[in-house]
């Protein structure tokens, strides 16, 4: 039971680490790393649910009888692209923030705005 759900446990653990990092860390880059982990955990969740035990990759000419469900893969392909876009936009903002503030720590940024 527990072993069979290993994927999902891994997802949950990754998800929580990511969520915690994205919310609680003051460093802007670490936040983005956490966000990335959170998203990847969700990708794993989708991929896991598409798995059919004993199934082959869903390519037409193979002789397997059961195929893994390709739909979650396609959905996640979209989500990965969205993730890349988000990450690069986030990093671009971080570069601009660094140029404007010379720091990447959230508390220091708040401090500098009060001066």
């Amino acid at each position, binding site marked *: 039971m527990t072993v069979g759900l290993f994927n999902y446990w891994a997802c949950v653990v990754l998800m929580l680490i990511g969520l915690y990092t*994205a919310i609680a860390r003051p460093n802007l880059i670490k936040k983005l790393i956490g966000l990335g982990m959170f*998203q990847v955990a969700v990708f794993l969740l989708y991929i896991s*649910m598409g798995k059919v035990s004993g199934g082959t990759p869903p390519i037409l000419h193979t002789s397997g009888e059961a195929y893994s469900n390709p739909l979650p893969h396609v959905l996640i392909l979209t989500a990965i692209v*969205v993730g890349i*876009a988000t990450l690069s936009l986030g990093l671009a*903002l971080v570069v601009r923030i660094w140029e404007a503030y010379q720091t990447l720590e959230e508390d220091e940024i708040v401090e500098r705005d009060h001066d």
Partner: protein
Amino acid sequence: MIDAHLPILLIVAPLVSAPLCVLLRQKTLVWAFAFVVCLASLGMASLLLVRVLQDGVISYALGGWIAPWGIEYRVDVVNAFVLLLVAIIAAALVVFALPSAADEIAAEQHYLFYAAYLLCFAGLMGIAITGDAFNVFVFLEISSLSSYALIALGRDRRALIASYQYLIMGTLGATFIVIGIGLMYMMTGTLNMADLSERLPAMFETRTAMVAFAFLSVGLAIKAAMFPLHAWLPNAYCYAPSVVTAFLAATATKVSIYAFLRFTFTVWGAEFVFERLNFDALLIPLSLVGIYAASLSAIYQTDVKRLLAYSSVAQIGYMMLGIGFVSVTGLTGGMVHLFNHAMMKAALFLAVGCVVLRVGSSKLADWKGMGRRMPITMAAFVLAGLSLIGVPLTVGFVSKWYLILAALEKGWWPIALLALLSSLLAVVYVWRVVEVAYFQRMDEPAPVKEAPWPMQVSMWVLTGATLYFGLQTDLTVRVAQRAAMGLLGVTP
């Protein structure tokens, strides 16, 4: 022939125009093009609403793949209403953008600004029109990513931080939505909303259903800036360029609320959400607390943009309150308020935009004597502000009337009273601006100088709309009523 394809053209037109803007590049040309596209979209959206009111639900199968296998665009009265709202705002604001963006955004970024604006517009329309759960996420990200970029265009360096915080919150919200949709797909094996609504009831007993709904609603609540998940909103609205603020305030949160309505009422069904999970027991107190907390914070702001941003959070509370009543009157109130608030908040932010253009600041302290310096702009501000308070003969009154009616219908008079009293807070924060603008003398008198005419036109069109729809109530209310009936599955 072409009107059979209206649903897809409505999305593809702005979506394709965005790369075309990048190709055109030349500033005025790009603006003219964006303007034509927005007008065309407005025309198509109005036509679509007329069609839907006449013939009922329109379904469009992308690629000829019939639902539930393919992606389906499904237009009923609810989303035709929201589509029209977004199109009106986009068309009105693109006029405003010509002088305002020229002032606030660096010249070499103009074509990118219009490209992002059109992308954001296309994304919002997409969320509203699609009948496929995962498609909602894709369009949500298209609109969100472009809005992060738009916010970061603000002149103040704090715009970058605001955009970054919105990016983190928004992506967390969107990912929550994906988890919710994934769990729904896991239970039913389908992503089509109509198909989901048929298959989900068999799963209502499971814990997965509850978890899926929880993820979905928290994700949408973040995107809709529902109290207490609104932390990203004030900064994002405060530091973004004026046009962007007005556009996002009028459309982005509204479309998220539409998505929330769609998922709770159409996909999950009112029976599951409100009878089984008693979601209204959470929604109504939260929205009331939200109304009061946000209105009180609005009173203490020293920046007009930020003041209006907090007021937006409060107004979202009213919409949620309407949803929480789960009655035709309540939902009508919520839907009408969704439309009306978009009009008046856009008008208010445009007035602020006009002042920012001439004075360069939205700080309340710099607004002294503004009633004399920019009388026309301030008149629009006051009229839209009256609407925000809910004075009779303005749209704000209409929506509050329905909300209070819905509360009384249920016999919940304390809620009706609380909603009524909260208007007094709105009086206070609108008065603060009026007091500074009209009754405080500025240190050294400056000549009268109004904003350029395109800005005036678009501001007055929206202000006029708040007055017109306040008098001609049957137009919006009738559509909202039909939308509410559609959501609750009541036949007229």
